[in-house]
């Protein structure tokens, strides 16, 4: 049960901000999110969208455990 967080325009696209989703890998989580909501899948695949696992930016795939916090971060706008 990874804890998935969406920020900025991503949560507007999805209609939610935070969800518990079971997935063993980040890649599998992306596939699952895109299957459930193609619009969100497309938004997550856009250039500039970063992923943080437990508040650390990661690139590529990664294993998730039951308590991993997965945050999808669109390009940061500054304050």
């Amino acid at each position, binding site marked *: 049960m990874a804890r998935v967080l969406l920020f900025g325009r991503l949560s507007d696209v999805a209609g939610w901000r935070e969800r518990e989703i079971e997935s063993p890998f980040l890649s599998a989580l992306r596939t699952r999110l895109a299957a459930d909501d193609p619009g969100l899948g497309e938004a997550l695949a856009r250039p500039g969208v970063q992923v943080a696992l437990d508040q650390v930016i990661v690139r590529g795939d990664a294993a998730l455990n039951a308590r991993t916090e997965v945050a999808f*971060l669109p390009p940061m*706008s500054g304050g």
Partner: protein
Amino acid sequence: MIRLTFDPFDPGALLTEFCRGRTEVGAVATFTGLARADAGSTAVLELEAYPGFSEAEIGKIAAEAQVRFKLADHFILHRIGRIGPGEPIVFVATAARHRRAAFEACDFLMDYLKSRAPFWKKEHGPDGARWVEPRAEDHADIARWDKERSS
């Protein structure tokens, strides 16, 4: 110190506190960013942060500024949530022995905060809401410091 707050704040009260008891510092520079009404075209600004992550990312840049400009101290407070016209959005204070360092560090921190800091910004205007990306000008501002670093 880096803090985010959902509540309105008074930059003056923060400056008073920041200056207290500084007998060896000499120079304190501050910047206060206020939400502009733009003659009614922007009613409310909404800023989203990723609690914990946003403070930590800003803290890394502040630690860099602390070393680079030999600061005695720094303080950053950033509003998040919904912000009305004329309300302070951000307050940055820097303390150093000499004023050039205090000014430059404050300028550097603001350039970072306005262009790359981990916030997502939405403007609620009369024609609805829109997400805002950094302006080309903001990118140019922060790029100045990269140039100086490599030269």
